């Protein structure tokens, strides 16, 4: 199926209502949801991500686009699951213990989904056990988010607990730096949600 320009545009401009409308229409008309996802929705998020990297769009537009994407995904996810759709890889994301900020983490999750990953969202205030549970459900990478300087040190605890279990540990969030990631022995650091995708692609060698 060719790219659905209208859907692509609706996601990029964050028009939630229109995205829902187009997706519903397409599903009702019998379109293949996998193609809808791969040819229109994922490219839309990827394109936003690239523009974001080039500083052509900023966080507000990203968040609005991601929310529109989420609205579309919500409709097709159950159908995808039935169709036995194969994602690139399974990863889990969570905000660390003591921290409830999740807007950035949600955006990371959304961009990963938008890039074709299966995302196990562990939510906020995640202790080591929650991350371990994510790994035992098949995640090949763990992405930790922290927005407070007071909760950031918990990433070290997570990294130490998961080291040697065959998963990649990627950290991010406003106060986090590459230097800190190296210091605690994490496998990677991403400054923004699009970098999260690039790092995943590189570390898991899926693209």
């Amino acid at each position: 199926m060719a790219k659905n320009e209208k859907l692509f545009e609706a996601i990029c401009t964050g028009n939630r209502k229109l995205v829902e409308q187009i997706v519903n229409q397409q599903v009702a008309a019998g379109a293949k949801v996998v193609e809808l996802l791969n040819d229109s929705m994922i490219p839309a998020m990827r394109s936003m991500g690239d523009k974001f990297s080039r500083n052509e769009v900023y966080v507000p537009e990203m968040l609005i686009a991601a929310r529109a994407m989420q609205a579309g995904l919500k409709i097709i996810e159950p159908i995808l699951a039935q169709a036995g759709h194969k994602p690139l890889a399974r990863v889990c994301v969570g905000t660390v213990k003591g921290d409830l900020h999740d807007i950035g983490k949600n955006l990371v999750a959304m961009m990963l989904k938008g890039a074709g990953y299966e995302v196990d969202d562990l939510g906020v205030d995640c202790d080591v056990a929650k991350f371990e549970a994510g790994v035992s459900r098949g995640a090949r990478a763990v992405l930790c988010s922290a927005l407070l300087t007071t909760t950031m040190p918990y990433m070290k605890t997570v990294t130490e607990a998961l080291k040697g279990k065959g998963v990649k540990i990627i950290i991010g969030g406003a106060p986090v730096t590459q230097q800190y990631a190296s210091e605690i022995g994490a496998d990677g650091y991403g400054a923004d949600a699009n970098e999260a995708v690039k790092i995943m692609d590189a570390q898991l060698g899926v693209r």
Partner: protein
Amino acid sequence: MTVHITAHGRTRHAEPTPDATLAEVWERAGWPLNTRCGGQGVCRGCRVSLGAGVYRIGRETVTVGAGETRETLACQTRVLSADARVEAPAGSLLETQGQIVDDFVLPTVMPDPTVRQLTVTVPESAPKAPASDWDRLAAELRRALPAERVEGGLDVLRALPLALRAGARVTGTAARLPDGWRVLEAAPEAAAGPALVAAVDIGTTTVVVVLADPARGIILRRAAQYNQQIRKADDVAARISFCRQPEDLRLLQDLVIQQTINPLLRQVCAAADVAPERVLRLAVAGNTVMAHLFLGLSPEGLGRLPFQAVRHVHPVGRARELGLAMHPAGLVDVLPSIAGYLGGDVAADIHVAQLLQRPEPTLLVDMGTNSEVVLSAADHLAACSTAAGPAFEGAGLLHGRRAAPGAIEHIVFGPALDFQCFVIGGGRPDGLCGSAIIDFMAEGFRNGLINAQGRFDIARLKQRGCYAHIRLKRGATHACVLVSADGSATGQAIAITEMDLSQVLKAKAATYAGMKTLLQLHGRKFTDVRRFVLSGGFARHINLRNAITLGLLPDLPLDRFEVIGNGALAGAYLALVDAAALPAMEALVRRPRVVELNRTADFENNFIDALLIPNLHADEFPS
């Protein structure tokens, strides 16, 4: 003949009747001065400063030259020349409905100070009913105050025999405590110094101290400076992280007391010509973390879930224990906090704005690095805190700075991008503060220079020659040059980048979303709000219309907004001059329902909607 009179930054024009004193001129203009002594020229309550002109002071004719000023008592002075300019310090204005004292507005209160100085005649011990020195003094004070319980410490007992040796007239200075009065000092009448108090607002960024005379209910002096803890860490969370070890906690306490408050106390006392020991009581307002650091309590629990304080309501502290530059036996009141991120500053706001006394649906917001929001109505009181980041205080922006002389405070322009910048204190600017960026974004949006996403019309910027491409650590960004290199004080152009715009959008979105979410939780809309109280230094300087255009404030008729200024400082001041204030604040901290926005599903949606100018739901902003 016109006289221009100025007080708290505003000027009125008065037409005096022949032979009217300046005190009468002020009174007729609606700004009565403090003429407690009945205009006898003895109390110095109506001090004013004369600008250029000819005057009669008493019987003498005085000429004040251009550029000069002269202090005088308004009740003793008459104006002889036209267009004279006279300015009154805030302390000379009489309390009317809502006194505007320096940087805050107070409700009308009956002064009932928590420190009082009384001179009593202590009788000799009667042979028939012998009584100790203390018992005789205490009996007199009990009668004079009047009070049931009066107690005193060892230092008072040590001074008492000496005082009595000088004569029967003894001046006692006593402080009110929950269960009675404590005598802090006893001195011979002739040797007693004044009994003053100081109110302190400990902000994360700025600390303000005002010196006041509780008996007269007036403010004598004010001084402010950066909170020196900034040297170690700039926001609350970073300060919490800093003091993991007890010695680091002591260092932060030292930085706020020894390096910040004490120099300010010495400064206001020197300006008022009194010794710092004449400050007998001090009241402090600040957020929960600041209160902890001031008292030397560990803020660790405030750093992560569930954000718990060591204590919310504090016992009366001792100056000696805290090492404050004031009377060693002096007392220290710390305003109580509501929750981890709703501190004594918010308790003060609620009290000062009289939210509990007024039934109409009211929204109060204290905007700053953390914006606190309180919703009150006849049947409920709820509060939340929403982290906005430092953009409103000018920090984190490329050329942002604090609102102080040299900063651009307001900006006006049209489609031609003819920027008119108003600089605090005049002269060339060296940056811009929070209120200026609000103007810039609102004007830019109106003129089509900035779109709803906070992006510039690059073609227009280039066409007008104000475009710049600026490299930052995190990549390059488009920018609008506001002031060229040769017009600025730094020798560098002052510009606003798209990155700056996005920082402000996040800050305004968090604030607006916090308010909206709190209302939604209580089944209300912005239009239900009858009274909208804005507290804090930033709100005092913003153009409300522009803040609405930007979508920071809701689109309500302007007459519903009430700007109260520094509510925290006002609360600390009231705690000293109105004995009912602190108990009222201590009682109210249990009342609000504390809402955690992170646990509220609507917040994220409201936040994302509000990231646009004015909002994704433009219908919330009809005008």
